[in-house]
C-alpha cells in the first residue's frame, strides 16, 4: 500500500476501539494480553455496553488492565478476582461483570474461589489467560506449566512426580452445573482472534440471560519468559500447548 499523507476521502477500514484507552501498554512485544484486551474492548464497543460493564483485574501481568480498559474496574488481591466479581454482580445484577485472570491467579492461588464462583453459577464472564508461566514475577512454574517445561523454579523441567501435573482447570470447571458456557481459544493468528471475539460476544449475550458462568480460556504465549521471539513462541504454542490444551468448545448452551 502506498503511504498516504492525507487520509481525507479514504475508506476507514480499522480503528482502535474507543473503550481502549490511549495509555501505552506495558506488555512485552508479541504478548497475547494486548490482543485479548483489544478484542474484549471491541466487543464492549460493538454491544454498546461500556457504561454497563465492570471489570476485575487480577494480580499478574494484567494487574494494570484498568489502565487500558476505559470502564469502571476493581483491582483484586491475588486469586480473588472471581470473589470480587461475585460481590459486584450480586449488588449490581443488571450490569455486565467480568474477571480477567492469569493461570497463577485463577488456577493456583485462586482455585477455591474459581471453583466455587462457577459452582454457584455466578452470572459473570471469567476470562482466563493461560500461558503456563508466571509472567509478572519473572517466569516461575505455573499450575498449567507443561511437563518438562523449564522455568526459573523448574530449571531442569517440570516433573510430575514431585511438582504435579499441569492442571486442566477448564475441563474441571465444565463439569460443574453452574458453568453455562465453557470454551478454549487462542490469539496466535487472525482466524483464532475472530473466533475468540465471537465467543466473548456470545458470553455477554448469555450473561444477560442469567444462566450461569461463562468461562473462556485463552491459551497464550509469553515470549519473554519462554525466552523466544514472538514468532517462535506462537510456533511453540501450537506444537506444545495445543495438544495438551486443545482449542474448541467444551460446554455449550443447549439450544
Amino acid at each position, binding site marked *: 500500500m502506498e503511504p498516504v499523507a492525507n487520509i481525507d476521502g479514504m475508506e476507514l477500514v480499522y480503528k482502535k476501539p474507543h473503550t481502549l484507552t490511549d495509555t501505552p501498554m506495558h506488555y512485552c512485544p508479541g504478548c497475547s494480553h494486548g490482543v485479548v484486551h483489544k478484542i474484549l474492548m471491541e466487543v464492549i464497543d460493538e454491544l454498546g455496553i461500556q457504561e*454497563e460493564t465492570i471489570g476485575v483485574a487480577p494480580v499478574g501481568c494484567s494487574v494494570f488492565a484498568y489502565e487500558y480498559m476505559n470502564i*469502571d474496574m*476493581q483491582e*483484586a*488481591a491475588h486469586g*480473588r478476582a472471581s*470473589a470480587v466479581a461475585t460481590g459486584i454482580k450480586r449488588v449490581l445484577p443488571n450490569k455486565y461483570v467480568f474477571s480477567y485472570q492469569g493461570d497463577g491467579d485463577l488456577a493456583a492461588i485462586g482455585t477455591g*474461589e474459581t471453583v*466455587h464462583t462457577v459452582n454457584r453459577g455466578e452470572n459473570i464472564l471469567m476470562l482466563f489467560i493461560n500461558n503456563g508461566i508466571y509472567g509478572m514475577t519473572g517466569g516461575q512454574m505455573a499450575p498449567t506449566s507443561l511437563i518438562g517445561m523449564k522455568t526459573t523454579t523448574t530449571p531442569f523441567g517440570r516433573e510430575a512426580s514431585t511438582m504435579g501435573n499441569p492442571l486442566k482447570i477448564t475441563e474441571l470447571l465444565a463439569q460443574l452445573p453452574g458453568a453455562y458456557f465453557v470454551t478454549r481459544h487462542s490469539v496466535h493468528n487472525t482466524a483464532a482472534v475472530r473466533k475468540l471475539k465471537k465467543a466473548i460476544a456470545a458470553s455477554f449475550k448469555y450473561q444477560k440471560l442469567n444462566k450461569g458462568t461463562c468461562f473462556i480460556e485463552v491459551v497464550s504465549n509469553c515470549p519473554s519468559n519462554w525466552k523466544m521471539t514472538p514468532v517462535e513462541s506462537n510456533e511453540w504454542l501450537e506444537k506444545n500447548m495445543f495438544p495438551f490444551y486443545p482449542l474448541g468448545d467444551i460446554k455449550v448452551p443447549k439450544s
Partner: protein
Amino acid sequence: MANEKGTSETRLMKGNEALAEAAFRAGMQAYFGYPITPQSEVLEYLAAQAPNHPDVVILQAESELAAINMVHGAAGAGARSMISSSSPGISLMQECLSYMTCAQLPALIVNVQRGGPGLGTIYPSQGDYFQAVKGGGHGDYHLIVLAPASVQEMVDFVFDAFRLSEKYRNPAMILADGAIGQMMEKVTLPPAGSLPKTEAPWATTGKSHTHERNVITSLYIQAERMEKHNLILQAKYIQMQKEVRWEEIRTEDAAIVLVAFGLMSRICEKTVDLAREKGLKVGLLRPITLYPFPTNAIAKLAKSAKAFLTVEMNAGQMVEDVRLAVDGKRPVDFYGRMGGMIPSPEEVLVHVESIAEKLQAVPV
C-alpha cells in the same frame, strides 16, 4: 417478627442476633460470611429473615477469604456491606482488609473474638486487640475499632461503624467477644432506615459517559506515588482522632484507675463497687473506640491518679497503649486471663488491693 419501618422496638435478644437485626435496620445492602463459632448466629439470623428483606444480598461464601473479597467487590460497587466472623476467620481476612483500607472502601467487619492463638477455643477472649487496632495486615493502616460491652452496644455500634466507615472511606470493626455475642439482654432497636446512605461517586457501578471511569485499586507501583497515597491515608487517621470515645466511672477522686474495654469493662465496674465498699478510691476508664484510642483522657488521669491497672482477657495487649498514654508518669500494672478464661470482679479486686497496699507503703 418483621420489623416495622419507622419505629424503634424493645426486645430480649442474643448479642449476635441483635447485631444482625441492627444490620438490616441500618440499611445493610450486602452481607457475606462463613460459619464459625461463636458468631454463626449472625448469618443464621440474616438467612432466616432474608424473605423480609428481598433487596439485601446475603451470601454464605466458601471461605472467609472469599467472603471478605466479596465485600471488597460489593463495597466497591457502592453497597453498604458487612461481614462477621471470629478470630481465626478474621486472621484469614487480613490481606483483603489491607487492600480495602488502601483502596479506601467502607465496610463493617465484626469480630466476635474467641480464645487463641491457633484454633484455640470457642470461649470468649480479647486476644485480637493488637490485630484489630494496629492494622492487622501488611502496610501502614488502621481500622476504626469499636468495642461493645453490652448487647445494646452490639446494636448501636452497627450504626456507628457504618456511619464512620462511610465518612472516612475506611473499614470499621466491631471488636466483640464470644460472651457478648452469646448472651441475651434487653435491647432497643432503632427504626429501620434511620441511617442515611453516604453518596459514593467513586463506586464502580458502570462508567457514566459524563465522567471518567472509576478504578478501585491499592496498587501504586512508583514509590513516589505510593508514599503520596500513604500520606493521604495518614492524614485521614489524624482526622479520625476526633471520633475517640470513652467512658469514665468514678475517676474524679480515684487513686487507682482500672482501664478495661468490652466485656472486661463491665466486670471491672463491679470491681470498682467492691473496692469502694472497702473504702478504696478506685475508678474505671473504658475505651469505647480502641482506634482511635483515648490517649489524652488517660494522660489527663495520670495527673490525678496514683496508679493504673489494665485488665484484659489476653496476655496484655491494650496495656501497651495505656503505658504509652501514661508515659512513665505513674505505674501501670496488668492483670489478665487467657484462652477463654474470664476474670471475676473479686479476682481483679485482689490485684487492686495489692496495688493499694504498695501505694500506702510508698507515699507518693
